[in-house]
């Protein structure tokens, strides 16, 4: 009951400030904007796949896997207010499920199965932990992630144990491998991540996602207004777990090799940093965050032994300068030139 009292006493202004000056849903579904965005994204991706070298293509493909990871994390964390470390577990489920299924069925189907599998594991996990408060859930999720890794560590038939599994069969989607493997992987990653972003974008624009904000910030008020809060929470968690699994499948597809060592709690922390760095209450923030966090270590390779330090300092500076993430900066700039959406209009 302590939660009841706290929630009663909390002013709503305590809500996370990301995107505070905007309403959440556009009056009409801006499906067109979304489609244009995905089209631009795809054209750019295919351009790099055609002209870039293998190294760039692989890094970009990893970046796209991270995009899927970040949008999945943002649905769960930014939108529904659940912090979960179990992300790295679902990432592993997706990766190993893909590698295993791809041996037996078409890789494209294996990807779908891996996604569903991760979503299912997410469902079981969230049902089992449904009664925990948010803080305890966060701690329990760490244990869940670790547990999943232990299972894979010992399930040699699926994970290959410490040797890992490789080569993982690649998806093609009927695309022709014109140049080399990396180009194909990038094309596939681009198509899959575009689809994931589109789905997430549609979800962000739905009444469902609006209810999630109430679930996040005004739980008890929501319940007293008839919103099935726990169910919404579980739905968001399952969607997030499925997207995380999809990201894991893309990772396995891109790296061609997968082992338990690829997964650890840092995956969840990376996802958190991507989401916070990108900021905002939509898909664009996580995409920007994923792009920065994938490219930054690559760019710092030349700094060799200092790269870890420079990476940390850069992140720190960015967070101090941009407390609301990149999208927060964007909102401020938009407000300056009078582009703020729907404030005191009509």
């Amino acid at each position, binding site marked *: *009951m302590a939660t*009841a*009292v706290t929630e*009663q006493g909390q*002013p*709503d*202004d305590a*809500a996370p400030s990301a*995107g*505070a*000056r*905007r*309403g*959440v*849903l556009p*009056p009409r*579904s801006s499906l067109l904007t979304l489609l244009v965005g995905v089209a631009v994204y795809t054209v750019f991706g295919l351009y790099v796949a055609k002209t870039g070298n293998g190294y760039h293509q692989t890094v970009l493909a990893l970046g796209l896997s991270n995009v899927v990871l970040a949008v999945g994390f943002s649905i769960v964390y930014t939108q529904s207010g659940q912090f979960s470390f179990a992300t790295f577990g679902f990432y592993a489920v997706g990766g190993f499920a893909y590698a295993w299924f791809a041996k037996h069925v078409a890789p494209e189907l294996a990807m779908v199965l891996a996604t569903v599998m991760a979503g299912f594991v997410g469902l079981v996990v969230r049902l089992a932990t449904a009664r925990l408060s948010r803080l305890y859930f966060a701690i329990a999720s760490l244990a869940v992630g670790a547990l999943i890794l232990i299972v894979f560590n010992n399930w040699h038939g699926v994970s290959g144990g410490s040797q890992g599994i490789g080569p993982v069969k690649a998806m093609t989607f009927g695309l022709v491998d014109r140049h080399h493997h990396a180009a194909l992987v990038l094309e596939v990653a681009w198509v899959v991540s575009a689809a994931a972003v589109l*789905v997430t974008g*549609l*979800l962000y624009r*739905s*009444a*469902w*996602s*609006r*209810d999630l*904000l*109430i679930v996040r*910030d*005004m739980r*008890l*008020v*929501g*319940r*007293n*207004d*008839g*919103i*099935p*809060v726990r*169910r*919404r929470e579980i*739905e*968001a968690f*399952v*969607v997030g777990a499925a997207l995380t699994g999809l990201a894991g499948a893309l990772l396995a597809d891109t790296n061609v090799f997968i082992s338990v060592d690829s997964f650890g709690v840092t995956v969840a922390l990376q996802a958190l940093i991507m989401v916070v760095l990108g900021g905002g*209450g939509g898909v664009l923030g996580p995409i920007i965050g994923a792009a920065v966090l994938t490219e930054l270590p690559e760019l710092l390779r030349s700094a060799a032994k200092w790269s870890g330090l420079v990476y940390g300092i850069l992140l720190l500076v960015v967070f101090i300068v941009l407390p609301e993430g990149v999208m927060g900066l964007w909102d401020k700039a938009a407000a300056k030139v009078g582009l703020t959406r*729907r*404030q*005191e*209009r*009509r």
Partner: protein
Amino acid sequence: MSGGLVVEDLSVHFGGVYALQSMDLTISPGTCVGLTGPNGSGKSTMVNAITGLVPSRGQVTINGSSLRLGVPGAAARLGLRRTYQTPRVHAQLTGVENVCTGHPAPEGRNVVGALLRRRRAATIERERRAAAREALARVGEHRAGDIVGASMSYGQRRLVELARVLVANPSVLLLDEPGAGLNDEETASLQVLIGELISNGIAVLLIDHKVGLLNAVCDHLVVLEQGTKLEEGSPAEVWASPRVRAAYIGQVGDAGA
């Protein structure tokens, strides 16, 4: 089976202290009961107990159905809605969006509907928004429709919150100090609005300190002190009671002593 709200022997205690002791209260459809009393007398505690925010014991019946106590959302399923002492409006959502979250239509609000039945969801969402604007107009706050909660004045938040519960067409409505922080003009229109709600057949529980408002809309007043009923009856009877006068003003003769 009678409609409205029936509360029998409702008690709330925190440790050894009773915040509410053996409360009985009946509100028939289309009537308004006023609940008043000094701060800390148990008014909000009663609303919190009915809506499951604090643990309680007793019997509560809403529209003839027995309510499971201590479960937030259970009262909502039986058609009861409440407002809060400090208005609860989401800071990032506009007035219309805030009100939409109180709308009962479920379409587009689960993950499958949001993805696969988009056309239906869009149709219902338009209806929801129209209903939200209507509810906002009803409380006299159509201007707050496109402002986010963070930019609303205190009075606007109160009225937007009220619109959010009204859009659900509740049959029982618990208003926790709806008049607090409103100016005279706003209070006057609130009075008219509550009058309309009552004539629409809603059972209203009105917690307030404003005597004028209570007298104008309530058929029956209950005065609480330290978790128990100090007095109840028609407004005229209650205000004439020496016990009520003593609780509010102090014992007769105290002033000079």
